[in-house]
């Protein structure tokens, strides 16, 4: 089985982390991100536990803080589905879920991409 450290599913990025942090709570859904304009959603099939931070949490990449949207604990390879994106297999492990970002050149600030 391929060991997976990173995955990308549309505007959702997954990044393997060593373990779950303390300041989180489990939420009873397998949907990790839901789009605003289309209502489409990234949802797991399989044995996956989903958590959300109870206070803002960040991962630093290239010296830049990225806000964690959710954490997932994949117990056994699970399928991440979406109405338009192809289904991907996510291997077991603990991942931080991050949102794709872009730069707003008029406001001169970074913003999360909203599908």
């Amino acid at each position: 089985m391929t060991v997976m450290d990173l995955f990308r599913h549309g505007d959702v990025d997954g990044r393997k982390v060593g373990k779950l942090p303390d300041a989180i709570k489990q939420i009873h859904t397998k949907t990790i991100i839901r789009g605003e304009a289309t209502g489409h959603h990234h949802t797991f099939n399989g044995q996956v536990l989903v958590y959300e931070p109870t206070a803002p949490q960040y991962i630093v990449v290239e010296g830049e803080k990225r806000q964690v949207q959710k954490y997932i604990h994949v117990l056994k390879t699970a399928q991440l589905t979406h109405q338009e994106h192809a289904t991907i297999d996510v291997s077991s492990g603990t991942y931080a879920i991050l949102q794709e970002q872009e730069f707003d050149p008029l406001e001169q600030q970074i913003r999360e991409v909203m599908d």
Partner: protein
Amino acid sequence: MSKITSLSTTQQEKLNTHCQKLHDFILHSGKDLTREEVESYIEWIYSKIGKPKPIILIFDSYLAQKVAINILNNNKFRESQVESQVWSQVRSQVRSQVESQVWSQVESQVRSQVRSQGLEFIEQSFGYGYESWWLTFTEYWKNEGIVKSDDFNSYLGLNRCGIWSIVYFEKSVFICKLPIKILKDERGRLHSVKSPSVQWRDGLDNYFIHGVGFEKDLWQKIVDRKLEPRELMKMPNTDQRFVALNHYGFERALTELAPKLIDQSKRGNKLYSIKFDAYTMKFLKYTDTVNGENRISFVKPEFDDADEAMAWKHNMTKNEYQNKLRVEA
């Protein structure tokens, strides 16, 4: 009676046909309900929760219904909602009656099928219609003679009057009629570039392009191709921007903005620079993983490397993007 644990091919086909009929009823019938039709059903619901018959208010659009509810809640007539009572004492009881007659695994199998018929947006945006999945499923079994419940018949009858959305209060109930017409594209997404996709009797319509919702003014500018590049760039929602850009014409937008290609990578990412007013801006042109179409996204101006910019967008380093990202869709 033994429970049903799977569907035969014939049952599956009949169920699909049944789902399609309900789909057509909700989205295309434009059924105009009458007060007389709903009164007895509402009286039945309120008797179930031990309350007298409420005032029935009927609206021609979803927006009108919601505005009216807001007005009610912001003035001296403020009322408590009894939705939880209706939920627990009527809906859940009706459901539990009929669910005991068919196995829930079959139900979950069908749930996704009904939703794939294109009713999904109703749940997201329009409320009550989201009950259609279990009503359709149960109605099928009722027609097959397996589900027998007077309460279900009444609950279904209320829906069949032509109700898009219903909100229950202590002394009043707010009903929104079905829309007159709903227009969709070939993939079943709400869509029209000629008229509102969801047309209500009072003209408070909803506008969509390929499943992406817009306010009327913005929709009009897009379909008339009068959107300025600046407005295009300011759109914070990528789906709106993508739809607008496609309609506006990607090449036309690029030509008008006179971009300069800075870098392109083996993975097909292209980094451009443009000057706009006092700003120098950089954007990536890349291929959408869904349909292979072009997308653009602005990145920080310090980038000069297309893959590095793409990696930044996706919360990783350039090395990770080029060498470790193995699963992408």
